[in-house]
């Protein structure tokens, strides 16, 4: 059976050639993307960092009260942030939150329209489905290699990987929500004089809203998990102390950073859901 391994099919080489070709032909294009993304994300981080931690904590608590009409969540968020502040991970937490917000925002901006388009065009969805499957099943580390070579070290490859990884959730759930809008509601909309645009805005999107919201919540959690891993290619945030702790077998730092990530995860999960969504 030696003949099986005698000639290796150069799958890996092909991928490498593809990436090399991209860099060679459109290197400037990728550099431009990297620069503009870096500018935007750095702007967001700077804005959030410029707030005094206490002001930030008050803002988050106020948002929690407004969103859930419940004081419990607000108190939890405030205490968590105070603890993180105390442990000395404030800056990293702000960076992580910025990355998650930015990635989720981008995913929603891309994912919701794509999901709506897919629900309206069965052919598009048939083409999209394997792509989405691929995006969700490829191990997250594998994303980092091509984005690293395309965009260079730093925050941008992490961000791009995060967006690609988390994009599938809002697309899928928007698709699901829109295609499950009851026929009679569509007929009613049409019968009462909706144009196609009004049908989308006044009937389909409101009817699919709970599904779209679930997609956004999922997207936030997926982004968070990926943002931490993105520290491997130099993205800032709570992933950095984790990677450093891993390299130096620093149990104390690993535990503290891990705790901060868990707290951020719980906060994001609670804050992304409104009260009747639970």
């Amino acid at each position: 059976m030696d003949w099986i391994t005698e000639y290796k099919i150069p799958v890996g080489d092909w991928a490498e050639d593809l990436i090399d070709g991209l860099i060679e032909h459109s290197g400037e294009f990728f550099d431009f993307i990297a620069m503009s993304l870096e500018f935007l994300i750095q702007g967001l981080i700077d804005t959030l960092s410029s707030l005094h931690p206490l002001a930030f904590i008050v803002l988050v608590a106020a948002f929690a009260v407004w969103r859930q009409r419940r004081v419990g969540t607000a108190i939890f968020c405030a205490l968590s942030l105070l603890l993180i502040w105390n442990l000395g991970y404030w800056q990293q937490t702000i960076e992580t939150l910025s990355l998650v917000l930015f990635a989720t925002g981008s995913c929603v901006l891309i994912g919701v329209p794509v999901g709506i388009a897919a629900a309206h065009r069965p052919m598009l969805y048939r083409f999209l489905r394997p792509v989405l499957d691929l995006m969700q099943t490829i191990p997250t580390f594998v994303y980092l290699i091509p984005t690293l070579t395309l965009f260079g070290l730093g925050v941008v490859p992490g961000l791009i990987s995060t967006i690609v990884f988390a994009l599938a959730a809002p697309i899928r759930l928007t698709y699901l929500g829109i295609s499950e809008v009851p026929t009679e509601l569509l007929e009613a909309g049409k019968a009462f004089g909706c144009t196609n645009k009004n049908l989308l805005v006044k009937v389909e999107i409101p009817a699919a809203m709970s599904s779209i919201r679930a997609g956004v919540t999922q997207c936030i959690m997926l982004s968070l998990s990926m943002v931490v891993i993105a520290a491997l290619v130099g993205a800032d945030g709570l992933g950095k102390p984790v990677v450093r702790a891993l390299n130096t077998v620093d149990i104390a730092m690993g535990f503290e950073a891990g705790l901060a990530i868990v707290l951020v995860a719980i906060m994001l999960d609670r804050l992304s859901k409104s009260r009747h969504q639970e």
Partner: protein
Amino acid sequence: MIEFKDVDVIFGKRPERALALLDQGMSRSEILATTGLTAGVRNASLSVAKGEICVLMGLSGSGKSSLLRTANGLNPITRGEVLLETDQGMQNFLAFNEAEKRKIRMDRITMVFQKFALMPWLTVAQNVAFGLEQKGLERTQVRDRVMHQLELVGLSQWATKKPSELSGGMQQRVGLARALAMETDIILMDEPFSALDPLIRNQLQDELLRLQEQLNKTVVFVSHDLDEALKLGNHIAIMKDGEIVQHDTPENIVLNPADDYVRNFVAHTNPVEVVKAKALLTPLSELPTLNGEYCLSRRHDYWLKLGETPLNSRVRFGSAEHDLQNWSADSPIESLLKQPTLVHANTLMKTVMEIRYHTGHGVLVVDENKVVGYIGDKDIYHAMLGKLFEDE
């Protein structure tokens, strides 16, 4: 007001393929087997006059909803025409472009749905306002109309509630208000009361009739319930396998069913609310006469002697002679005397029975100022037992 002309509706891809087969007279299942297409409606022609309620009746799958939906373009018409009365006279709905169709849907023709089809995220008032906002009315105008409609269906206190907080009957009232708010001439109603309890259904039927008396809309109503059809319809079109098998008045549907399918449908209906005196009576010409008197009942020694006018006629019961009295639709039956009564030929069977019960005498039927026949117990039993239908 609205006219369906040779309408075919075929569902599936490239529906033209089925038209030739349809013309050859192939059945639905044969067409489905050869082309994979479903013939929803075939060769349906129907004309609905202004201000009438026309009921499309049939079992599920008979094509009644499919036909209804061609009228506002929710279903495509594969062949044929749907003509609507507009300001420019009768116009073919198919010939309109999307914008014109939209305009027709907002100004001429509106719809009430079987499962209510209310937007669950909007309040009752917002639901009623839904179509008005599409029309682009001003906010105050929308609010006035919404409040007016909610008052009309008795739901003013529920304006700020969500549909899910309302019972089924109330939800359909909202559906009705949403349609009425559009102030169109034509309302399509697709089994609007089928999802409701019998008691509530009855209430809403009465309410629809009450509203119809005020508003005088043209209604095309789909139902699978013959009693509902008989109660509401000025005309009934019975559909089977996509075709209209009979289009007639309720009374004619019950008395002269076109075929076995219709006969099966009407076999179990209660004739009391449908059949009129003229169908019930025994004509004078069929009564035996003796000495210029008609024999109404030999056993009871009951005789009729015609006078110059119906009211001058006299009825003899053994040796006792009776005057006659007139009953007209607006006088209460309780005020009638215990003597024979003259009723008009269009009086409902139910009323005839009540008069017979109250006066203790037979009922004479008048048409064009002449006594045309007599209704005795035998005639009533005859109809109640469904024998009227068997005679045909």
